[in-house]
């Protein structure tokens, strides 16, 4: 009996990770992820300063050396060409490994450099380093075979392991973040109210509002948003959403609503908390939740309209006339 269960579990495990699918979604995600990575370089330059020698340090391990301010700047500068390489789909494995090394060093140089967003980026880079990330939507895929390219911009069909690993990470981020929010202080709206007050009175959002609204309007907006009972429904809603999304995004019937809610959620986080890099990366992963076959055929239609000629199918499973789905 137990052997039957084990064999069943093994089969399901293998099927989940080995299910083949078009790599077009992964390619497009790679491009969007690189937009977030490029923006994150500047953020990291400001916020990872505990890799610089001098002052208080809380190392993870003693043998990771600290660097001078000049080298610290260089470590960030070096990331830019690597992000561009990854974004263009050239030498994606080498670019991912290089970025892992540079960002991983800055991240692990000191406990005080810890932020959730770079940690998420490191996990995704780890997966991309092992994935066929340059298979689609890449310069290499664009070049014809006679020039050493792949000649198939929309990629091929490969096991969906990499895409699904990223989705597992995303699901766990939502789940654990939602579970953390299950406390009276957060659900009462107090933390969100404080965040809103800070954002509405200081920083770039405050500057934007000053250009658009009158001082009286801003004052009443601040008074409203900084009152916890007014934002408590938002707090409860965000916690509930983070607990529902890890499941709803996987179920085709609920996916459209889940994606819409997730987009509103992350755009809201970007506007109210100024956290755009993480939001862009998370929204990019929604491409991977979509049915990869449907996504590829939609992209094919769009590209065909753009170039004005049919795009040849290079894998029989991608032929819209004879879709051979696994």
């Amino acid at each position: 009996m137990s052997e039957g269960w084990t064999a069943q579990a093994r089969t399901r495990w293998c099927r989940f990770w080995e299910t083949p699918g078009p790599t077009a979604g992964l390619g497009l995600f790679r491009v969007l992820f690189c937009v977030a990575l490029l923006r994150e370089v500047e953020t990291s330059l400001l916020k990872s300063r505990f890799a610089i020698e001098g002052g208080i340090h809380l190392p993870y391990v003693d043998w990771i050396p600290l660097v001078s301010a000049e080298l610290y700047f260089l470590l960030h500068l070096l990331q830019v060409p690597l992000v561009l390489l990854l974004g263009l789909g050239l030498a994606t494995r080498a670019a991912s490994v290089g970025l892992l090394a540079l960002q991983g060093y800055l991240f692990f140089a000191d406990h005080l450099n810890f932020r959730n967003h770079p940690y998420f980026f490191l996990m995704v880079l780890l997966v991309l380093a092992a994935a066929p990330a340059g298979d689609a939507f890449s310069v290499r895929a664009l070049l014809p075979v006679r020039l050493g390219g792949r000649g198939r911009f929309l990629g091929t069909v490969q096991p969906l392991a990499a895409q699904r690993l990223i989705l597992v990470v995303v699901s766990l981020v939502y789940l654990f973040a939602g579970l953390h929010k299950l406390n009276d202080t957060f659900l009462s709206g107090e933390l969100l109210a404080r965040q809103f007050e800070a954002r509405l009175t200081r920083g770039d959002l405050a500057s934007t509002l000053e250009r658009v609204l009158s001082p009286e309007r801003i004052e009443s907006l601040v008074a409203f948003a900084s009152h916890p009972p007014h934002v408590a429904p938002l707090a409860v809603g965000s916690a509930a959403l983070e607990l529902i999304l890890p499941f709803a995004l996987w179920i085709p019937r609920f996916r459209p609503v889940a994606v819409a809610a997730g987009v509103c959620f992350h755009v809201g986080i970007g506007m109210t908390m100024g956290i755009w890099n993480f939001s862009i990366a998370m929204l990019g992963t929604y491409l991977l939740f979509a049915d990869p076959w449907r996504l590829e055929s939609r992209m094919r239609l769009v590209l065909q309209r753009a170039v004005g000629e049919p795009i040849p199918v290079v894998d029989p499973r991608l032929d819209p006339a004879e879709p051979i789905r696994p």
Partner: protein
Amino acid sequence: MTKPTGASERQADHVTRQERPPGAPRRLSRTTHQAIALFVLVQLCLPLRGFVLDLHQTRGDFSWNMYSHRYQCRARYAERDSTGKVERIDYREHFQRRSRAPMVFHRDALPAFHASLCSVVAPAERGRELIASVRCSINNGPRQPLVAEGVDICSAPRYAVLER
């Protein structure tokens, strides 16, 4: 039926790959499956520490704790000379980013912070002691002391960080 050995397994897989028609599903190797399993296990288990231990114990790094709790600390550090005269020091001036200073006020980080602070301030070289008061509250709860007050943190066991 005997189980194939590693070498004959690889040979069989190579033959199978050659015979596999174009467009046939590609299998992942056992090593890849093991790596995936390890990755998923780490992603599941690493965050648990942040749920098992409270914020006094740990900040909950790697547990996806994002703006979910209110953790307030009142921290004072001072040098005390041999006459008992106390002079406050600004511990935040030794941080590359002052805003990150509150990150250290958890029992798992405080000993390392005190060790670093003692090394940077080096009060013993001037015949002084470093004393501290760190009291923190979670989600508007009662404040708890994290550091033994009135003792020299540089020479105390665990740098004067209280176990509980």
